């Protein structure tokens, strides 16, 4: 790991310790321990002191962190309790650096590399334009859909590395639906984004099957020194490619799902298909569309049908039609 990158990780660790309201006023020893534990080697006091100084005063970093030392509590704190280095926007230098990098990446246009990163690049470019309107007096001219904070995204790099290097992991997972903690061992195959939320998909030893885990529900992942288990390719393809969303309904197989939509929703679905398997089976004279999907049913698909219940009707399979109707009736009862 480069020194600069490690320094940045230390800044993030120090920031997390000082921001932690559960354990306020971390001491110098606490900060040293936290860095040592996360980075796996020793640090001395002067390194952490220099880090704190850089976070407070380094103009290039631009953090201007309001770090103070409380004598009465023998620990560090932010004089602005809402401060965190995660909230620092890009400065001019950052933007110039990104601009240079983007120009460099644009040189690869037409190559396979470009195809693979095109989607990501589009996002970066869009965000970049969001930060830098051509006419600065105009203010923000592009707004993308981004949540205000991303709990669990701090694990992204960990899971990216574990997935690419095929290393099994253990993490504590909290299920929002079951209201239960579990410590699971997973062989990660893919990181997946759906509606601005990130998930890791892999073979779970605990469940003995492919499973999806939201990064926001994961605590303290660890890398394990044990053999990596690969799932059959066909099974992975089904799971990754033929699911709308991230949580396939257990025991359901890939199947044809048919629904009827009113013209107003039909127009949207023609412009933005739900999935690559979307097929227009029929168009009525009044503009109503009969649409099919070839998918493993998922919770997200049922949620989509529910949220558009006044504009569509599920026709097949019958169990899904019944499920959507029952959930809709249940929602109506909750309103009473």
């Amino acid at each position, binding site marked *: 790991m480069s020194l600069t990158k490690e320094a940045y990780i230390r800044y993030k660790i120090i920031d997390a310790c000082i921001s932690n309201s*559960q*354990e306020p006023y971390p001491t110098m020893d606490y900060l040293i*321990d936290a860095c040592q534990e996360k980075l796996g080697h020793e640090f001395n006091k002067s390194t952490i002191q220099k880090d704190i100084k850089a976070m407070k005063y380094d103009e290039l970093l631009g953090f201007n962190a309001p770090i103070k030392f409380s004598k009465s509590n023998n620990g560090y704190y932010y004089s602005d309790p809402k401060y965190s280095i995660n909230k620092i926007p890009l400065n001019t230098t950052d933007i110039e650096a990104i601009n240079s990098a983007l120009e460099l990446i644009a040189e690869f246009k037409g190559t396979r590399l470009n195809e693979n990163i095109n989607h990501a690049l589009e996002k970066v470019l869009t965000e970049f334009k969001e930060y830098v309107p051509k006419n600065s007096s105009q203010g923000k001219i592009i707004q993308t859909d981004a949540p205000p904070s991303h709990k669990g995204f701090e694990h992204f790099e960990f899971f990216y590395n574990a997935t690419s290097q095929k*290393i099994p992991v*253990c993490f*504590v997972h*909290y299920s929002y639906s079951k*209201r*239960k*903690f*579990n*410590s*699971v*061992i997973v062989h990660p195959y893919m990181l997946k984004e759906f509606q601005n939320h990130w998930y890791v998909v892999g073979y779970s030893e*605990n469940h003995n099957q492919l499973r999806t885990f939201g990064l926001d529900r994961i*605590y*303290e992942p*660890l*890398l*394990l*020194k*044990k053999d990596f288990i690969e799932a059959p390719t066909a099974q992975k393809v089904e799971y990754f490619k033929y699911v709308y969303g991230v949580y396939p309904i257990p025991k359901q197989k890939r199947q044809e799902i048919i629904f009827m939509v009113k013209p107003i929703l039909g127009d949207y679905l023609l412009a933005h298909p739900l999935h690559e398997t979307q097929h227009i089976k029929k168009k009525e004279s009044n503009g109503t569309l009969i649409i099919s999907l070839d998918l493993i049913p998922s919770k997200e698909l049922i949620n989509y049908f529910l949220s558009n219940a006044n504009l569509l009707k599920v026709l097949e399979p019958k169990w899904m039609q019944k499920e959507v109707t029952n959930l809709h009736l249940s929602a109506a009862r909750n309103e009473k």
Partner: protein
Amino acid sequence: MKNNPNISFLYNLPEYKSNASPKLLRITTTPSYTKVDFGYQATSYYISGGWVRIEKNTFIRIVKTGEKLIVNRIENIPIAPQRLDFTSTKDWLYFSLYFPPLPKDIEIIDLIEAEKGDTKDFNYFKIELSQNNAIELC
């Protein structure tokens, strides 16, 4: 517990059962510390989920010798008499306790918050750290 004291091991305990409320999730043993991770789900037994805290002298007892290792670092749960009051019966808490490193060849430990305590105390007995359950950490 595995013999090599220079390697870190994970003991995943998804099946461990106890009368204590927090679920004992996993134990990590390293040359410099022993870490125990817990998950607590607030209960509808109490209005607004009740509260939690941990005694500062919580310890690991090595069953074979009776030796005690006192907790030396507590993460994400208040130390008594401070306490965390939940605001609903659906709240949850993940927390960890750190102890000194375990001696080698340890097979069974107890984790005790209060000697002669009741089910409200965080007491866990006969936790097996057998070689079969140990997974080496990278």
